[in-house]
Every structure is written in C-alpha cells, then in structure tokens.
C-alpha cells in the first residue's frame, strides 16, 4: 500500500556534508498501557527536512526525543550515519533541539543563551560571544543579544532557541512543533526562515508538526504517523495527490466521501465510472475526492444545490447538497463564486482520474 518513496531528498543533499543520516529501526516504546511507538521504521536522508506529521498522541514527540536522547526505546534503535546511538547520553549526542514550549534559560540574556553550549565546551568568552552574535544575525535578531527571555516576544524566543540549537553545529536538527505557540502570521514567516536556514546549512532536520499545511509547505518529505506506526512517507505533492491510505487522505487536506459502487478496478460514482487507485474492490464503497477535483456547472436541471459559499481570494469553497441529501465540498476559482452563489442549481461531475476508495462510513448509508 505504501507509495513509492521518491528521491526528492537526494537533490537537496548535493554539496551538503553537514547533515547526517538518521534511521529509526523498529522503535517500540510504551508508557503503561499506551503504545507511543509501535515499531517505527523510517530513514531521514542526509540534509533533508523531514516533517513528522500526525494527529495528537501518535508518537511524534516520542520519536524525536528518542533521537535527542531524552527518551529510550523499549526495543529498536536509532542510528545516526549508521552508528547505533541508543546508549549515548543526551549531552553527547550530535543533535540540536528546539522545544515546543519556551525553553530559554531565564537567567541568561539571549547572547548567553546561544553561547551556553559553547560555554559548556569551554570556548573562550570572546570567541563564543562572537559566535553567538553571528548566530543571532543568522536567525534575524542581530540586536537582541543583551535582552533577557522575558523581554523577547514568543517568536523572538523561538528564534533564539533555534540559534542556540545551531550553536554547536550539530548534524541533526530536531524541531518539536517550534511554532505552535506563535500566532499565524509569525508562524508562516518563521517556518520559511527555518527552511531557508536549513537549506543553506544542509543540516538534516526533523520537524514535528500536527499542522499539515506547515508540513506540506516546507518539507522535502513528509512522514505521516498513526498510532506509533509509519503510515506513509513521501514528498508533499505525492502525499497530497496520491495518499497511500484513506487515513493519510483524510489527514492531509480535505476529502469528500461520496458513496459509489465498485466492481474490480472501476468505481461508479455520481453517474460516472472512474478507475480505482489501489487493489480491486467490489460492492458499496466511499470514494475519496478532493474538493478541487469536483466540477460544478450551473444547470437549471441540475440535481444538486449550492448551500453555502466561503470566498478565500483565489478560490472559493462551496458546500453543495446532492439529490440524496448528502453534502460535499467543492473548490472553484474565486471569480466563479458569483455564478455559483448559494441557491444556484448545479450539476456535479468529478475530474477523470484514479480515485481512492474506502469502506463506507457508518453514517453514509443514512
């Protein structure tokens, strides 16, 4: 079922010797009755930015902490450049981490926070201050060195934390939802900056997020986790267009469930036969269709009605009620939203391309 892994990461690594390859080998971790990691197998290529995506509680943080050394797998191993680091203490691992919560040392100013790791390594004061200043400039904060964490905004604190994580020139960068505490606008700019920095440093980066848009927009590859297992790992475009499983399809982007009848490799839906993406099936199924793959044409004899419309600039998302009373979402170009105002009768067709099917939802029959 897993879609073929594309070589997207390979392109990025050219000339980047800085990143290490990180491998999760059959990681298993349980807390009491909860299984946080259930045999996770995943390889992060040198220099790539891999987003770990999944619903809350699926084990993203746990996986990341296994790399940082704050969590120890019950079974399995973490390999960095082929070396098993499972037994290496956290302070000797070659991985910088940015935490979800603000984690700057409150008693140190921004510069000393960044220089903390260098100080641990007994780098001379002048040298580490110069390096800290350099790093602060790198994250776009050249003039906050003297400020204490409580004098910095959330976004600035996370930037400083990023600079601190990079100070020891680690070969792996671990980001555990570093943007989740920030407001939407800052989140977008900062994630782009992280990406730019990551590309220029060529550092292998694992970026944990539960925001699919964030994952799709900056990652080389996205790994979708579900209940401690890898569901699919591939580049963002493939993940969106050809999700390997209904779970991924559901989790990444929006999906319509439209009842249909399958016979082998074709499925009949909304009066049209489409090829099935995946193994042959028979009987009643749900056909999974993206809103942008739904085509609406105004027609006085149409069987469906537009019931709601929300304009989003370049596109508009419409809610359409079908003849049987079920609803689906459709994305149309923004300028079409006038023709397709609520109340307009329309005919509904689907873009002719292979579709994913899943078991019918319990509620769908009603």
């Amino acid at each position, binding site marked *: 079922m897993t879609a073929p892994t594309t070589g997207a990461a390979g392109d990025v690594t050219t000339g980047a010797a800085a990143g290490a390859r990180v491998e999760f080998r059959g990681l298993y971790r349980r807390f009491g009755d909860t299984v946080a990691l259930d045999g996770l197998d995943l390889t992060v290529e040198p220099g790539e930015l891999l987003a770990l995506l999944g619903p809350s509680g699926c084990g993203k943080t746990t996986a990341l902490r296994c790399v*940082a*050394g*704050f969590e120890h797998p019950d079974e399995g191993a973490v390999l960095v450049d082929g070396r098993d680091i499972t037994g290496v*203490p*956290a*302070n*000797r*691992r070659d*991985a*910088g*981490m940015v*935490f979800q*919560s*603000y*984690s*700057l*040392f*409150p*008693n140190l100013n921004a510069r000393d926070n960044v220089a*903390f*790791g260098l100080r*641990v*390594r007994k780098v001379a004061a002048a040298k580490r201050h110069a390096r800290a200043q350099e790093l602060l400039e790198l994250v776009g904060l050249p003039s906050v060195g003297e400020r*204490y*964490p*409580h*004098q910095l905004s*959330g976004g600035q*604190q996370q930037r400083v*934390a990023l600079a*601190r*994580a990079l*100070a*020891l020139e680690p070969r792996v960068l671990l980001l555990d939802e570093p943007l989740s505490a920030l407001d939407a606008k800052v989140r977008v700019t900062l994630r782009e900056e992280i990406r730019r920095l990551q590309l220029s440093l060529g550092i292998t980066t694992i970026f944990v997020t539960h925001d699919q848009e964030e994952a799709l927009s900056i990652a080389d590859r996205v790994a979708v986790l579900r209940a401690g297992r890898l569901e699919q790992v591939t580049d963002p475009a493939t993940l969106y267009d050809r999700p390997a499983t209904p779970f991924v399809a559901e989790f990444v982007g929006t999906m319509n469930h439209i009842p249909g009848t399958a016979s082998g490799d074709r499925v009949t839906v909304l009066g049209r036969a489409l090829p099935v993406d995946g193994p042959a099936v028979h009987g009643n199924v749900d056909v999974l269709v993206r809103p942008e793959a739904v085509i609406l044409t105004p027609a006085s004899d149409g069987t469906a009605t537009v019931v709601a419309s929300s304009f989003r600039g370049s596109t508009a998302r419409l809610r359409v009620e079908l003849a049987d009373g079920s609803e689906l979402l459709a994305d149309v170009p923004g300028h079409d939203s006038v023709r397709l105002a609520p109340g307009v009768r329309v005919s509904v067709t689907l873009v002719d391309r292979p579709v994913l099917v899943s078991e019918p939802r319990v509620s769908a029959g009603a």
Partner: protein
Amino acid sequence: MAALTPAPLPGDAPASSGRGRKGRPRVWRVVVLSLAALYFLVPMAASFWFTVDDPQGFSADAYGQIFSAPGFGSSLLLSLGLAAATIVVVLLLTLPAMLAVRLGAPRLRPVLEVVCTLPLVVPPITFVAGISTVLRFGPEYLARTPFYQTIIAMQNPDFPVVLVLAYVVLALPFAHRSLDAGLRAIDVPTLVEAARNCGASWPHVVFRVIVPNLRSALASASFLTLALVLGEFTVARLLSFQPFPVWIVYISGSQAQVSVAVSLFSLLLTWLVLLAVSVAGRNRS
C-alpha cells in the same frame, strides 16, 4: 511557563505603586499600614524605652553591656554556626530530592510534600521528648563502640550536631515551601533537557541552570531557616544547650535591661540579614 515569571519590565513597576488609583483606596492603604506599623512599633518602642530608661534620664548602658555580658559572643556564634550548618544540610537534602521527584517521579510529589510538611504538626515538646529518649539510649555494653561515641560527640556543647539535625527537621517545611514556589515558576524538565541538549553534564545542569534560576527561592529558604534557628528555644533549652535564644532567657533573669536590649539587637540583626538576602535574591538586572 517559564517565560511567565512576572519579572517587571524596567519603567513600569514603580510608577503604578506610588499613586493609588482613586483617593479612597489610598486612604485605606495609609490606615492599614499605620495600624500594622503601630502593632509592631509600639512594643518595640516600649522595649527600647525600657532599655534606655535610667534614674538619671537616658543611658545606653544596657547596649554597652551586651557585648561584655558573659556568654554573649559564644552563644551568638554558636547560633550562627548552627544556622549555617542547618541551611547547608536542609538545602542539600531538599533540593536534590525535589528535583529528582520533578524529573523522575512526578507522582511522588504529594508524598514528598506531606513528608516535608509533617514537622509542622508535631509539637516541639513531643519532638524533643523523642530526641532525648533516643540520646539516652546507650546501654553500658555499647560504651566502647563507635556508635556510642558518635552519640556522645553529637552532644558536644561546643557544637551540638544533634541540634543541627533537629533544626533540619524543623526547617524542612519552610525550605520545601520556598523551593517549591521557586520550582513552580520555571519549567524544570524543559530547561534541563535544553541544557542537556547543549551538552551540559548533570552537575553543570544543576549548578549552572537550576540553581541560578532558583536564587531567590534558595535565598528565602535560607532566610527562613536562619530566622528559625536564631529564634528556636524549646529544643535547645530542653536538650540543655545554650545558643543565643537560650542565653537571652538566661541573662534576662539577672539583668532585665540587658536582656531586652539583646532582643532588640537580635531583631536588628535579623532584619539586616533579611535585607541582605532579599537584595541578593533580586539583583538580576
């Protein structure tokens, strides 16, 4: 959480405290403050009056006699020494335990809290009765063993280690409270992990990351312990040692004026220490 420590930005703190919002609250503030001040100042003024009262009018003689009164220096030094030892022991006991519980076994936190608060509910008399029973436990046949000699050494009147141990128990609730408040204000697990991630060893984490961020909590724990030891009478008296508080009572029997003068003096001393501690805990900027 750590970022939420209410550290005032420069410039906005003093402005609001000086002026009341409206006239009325300000009046009340003055009234309450004056009443509280009266409550504390009147007895002290009366004490002071008593110490300087003299048939001829005014005399600071009592204060001069403090320093020459027999046993003043030795008992004060003993108390300060006991206080220092108690502070060291109680901090070495509580801080690592509280850190370990926070990092490794958060579920044990209530247990630790109860254990540390327990001394508050045991009356000192009961406590001393227990200690003296233990100290008296020394059958003849043990006389030559190191155990017995340790018990004897602990009761050396020059520096009664047994008092340190007793004071450690008595100071436990106060030290625990102070440190708990300090630890609540910072996100210990995250800071520890951030420091570990930067390559810090465990001792480095504790002394360079945790302790600096607990400075005011450590200071207040130390101060409370100091105040407790400088004022503790029951245990010391019943175990027949003579630290400062016991000496004050002893001297008051013979020289009333001097004993009150000494009380005022020790109050002043405690204040100075409080001032020093609060300054030490505050100078961050």
